[in-house]
Structure formats: C-alpha cells, structure tokens
C-alpha cells in the first residue's frame, strides 16, 4: 500500500463508515417497526397467544424445532405446523409423546394441561398467519 494511505485515514473511514451505516440501519429499523403491524397481524395476539409463546419458550421447543426457519434442525419446522396438521393433531401429538420407538428421535413428555395445549395451539396458529414473504417453499416446511 502507498505511503499516502495513512493509519489516520483508515481510522476515519472506520469511524465514518460505522456511524453512517448504523444510522442507515436505525432508519430502516424505524421504517420496519412502522410497517410491521400490517404484516404480523398483532391485533390477533390474544392473551392465549401470549401464554402460548411463554410455553413455547419455557419448554425450549426451539432446541429441536425451527420456527420460521430459526432454531435447531433436529425436528420439523413449526411456523406453519398449524396449516400442515391442524390444532387437534398438534394437541394429540404432544400428549402422546414420547413414542418410544427404538432408535428413533424422541420428543419429551411435557405434561401440559388442556388449557396450556390450547394456548400453544393459538400461538402456533397466530404464527402461521404472519406474512413471511411466502416462506416456506411448501407445506412440509
């Protein structure tokens, strides 16, 4: 590199560039937060959905499953599971775990009450209605 390219110049580019792009990021975030209500249908977030998310978190579901593609890749995507399987199947499935089939992946038994199961289903139903730009590519997730 040339001698005219000084450390001070490189430092200025670093500070200038970081501030510039962070401001741009904040501006885009501001726009996103303004736009989100049209995409996430937050008017449908009932108390049941809120409780359902809490159950989702406290059972560490994301440690095996993905939701909207984020999480572990050990078990199926659940962002669209409501559309794939429907609420009754989901509840019956959770209640019947673990399958105990030898050598197969096992899901723990979480001993959820009927009310908790309903909450979890309403959370998954609300999640399946988020506008995700048509992801996943098909119903299998």
């Amino acid at each position: 590199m040339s001698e005219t390219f000084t450390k001070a110049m490189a430092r200025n580019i670093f500070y200038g560039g970081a501030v510039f792009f962070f401001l741009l990021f904040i501006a885009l975030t501001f726009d996103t937060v303004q736009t989100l209500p049209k995409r996430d249908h937050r008017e449908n977030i009932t108390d049941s959905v809120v409780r359902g998310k809490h159950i989702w978190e406290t059972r560490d579901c994301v440690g095996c499953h993905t939701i909207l593609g984020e999480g572990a890749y050990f078990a199926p995507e659940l962002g669209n599971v409501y559309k794939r399987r429907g609420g009754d199947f989901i509840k019956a499935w959770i209640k019947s775990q673990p399958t105990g089939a030898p050598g197969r992946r096992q899901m723990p038994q979480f001993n959820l009450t009927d009310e908790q199961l309903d909450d979890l289903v309403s959370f998954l139903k609300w999640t399946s209605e988020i506008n995700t730009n048509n992801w996943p590519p098909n119903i299998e997730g």
Partner: protein
Amino acid sequence: MPPGDLAIWFFIFAELLAFGIFFVAYAFARAHNVELFNESQQHLNIASGAINTLVLITSSYFVVRAVAAIKQNFSRECARWIAAAIGMGGIFLAIKLFELYAKFSAGISLSTNTFYMFYLSLTIFHFMHVILGMVILTAVMLKARSGGYSAKLHTGVETGASYWHMVDMLWIILFPLVYVIH
C-alpha cells in the same frame, strides 16, 4: 496514483460496487415487473431530478475550480469555490427533501411496491452520501481557509474532490435509470 489519498479510492470503489449492485438489481427487478415500474415511474417528478443533476454537475465543476485554485496556491479562492460547491449540495438536499416530502405525504413508503422500494432506497442512500460528501467538503474548506493547504501539499483537497465527484457520478446514472428510462 489517483488524485487524493489512496484510502478514499478504496472507499470510492466499495461505494461504486454497492451502488452498482443496486442499479443492476433495479434493472432485473424491473424486468420481472415491467408494467408496475413503468406505471409508478409516471408519478415521479422528472423536473426535480433533472434540476438536481444540473446542481450536482455544477457543484462538481466548482470543486474542480477549487483544486485548480489550490494548485496556484490561492487558499482563500479554493475555500470560496468549495463553499459554493457545498451551497449547491445544500440546494440538492432541499430539492430532494421537497420531492421526498411529496412522496411521503402521498402515503408512499418502502413497502408500497418494488419500484418505490428501489426509488426510495436509492435516492435516500444517495442523499446520505451527499450529506457525507458535504461533511468532508466542509472539513476541507475549513482547513483551506486557515491556510492548511498549499500548491505543494493539497492531497486533502483532492481527496474531498474525488469523493464529491463520485457522489455526482452516481447521481448521473441514478437519474436516467430511475426517472427517465422505461
């Protein structure tokens, strides 16, 4: 060596690359949605885009005169030319703000459609570069005014000038691409 500090050229090339990708992305996004782009383009204010082009080209010319002045060791004259260029930058920003204000009050946002996403992203991204360019020019002007440059030592002036010309160059492509060609 190109005029100015080599570091600014790394920066300039990075900027050209980023804008270049955005321009090409615009063109291919349009190819997928020609009707929408052509229809939305009708609502842009071509006059304000054109005036802004004239403004930026003129300010670039002023910067050229500033470089010429410092090469003759005329610090004050150099500072005055840069001040004029910054003034033109201010006019650009004002016109752009009017244009953007009109769009925002019409309820247009990044999510209106793909065309407006590109229109707003490209013009605002460029707008921020104009501001950054003005900041750099202001620093150069202040130093020139206090006699910090001379005919022998004027890399700083050329550095600021190169960045400003790049901002101009990008607008020269942006204007026809987004406002005119359909």
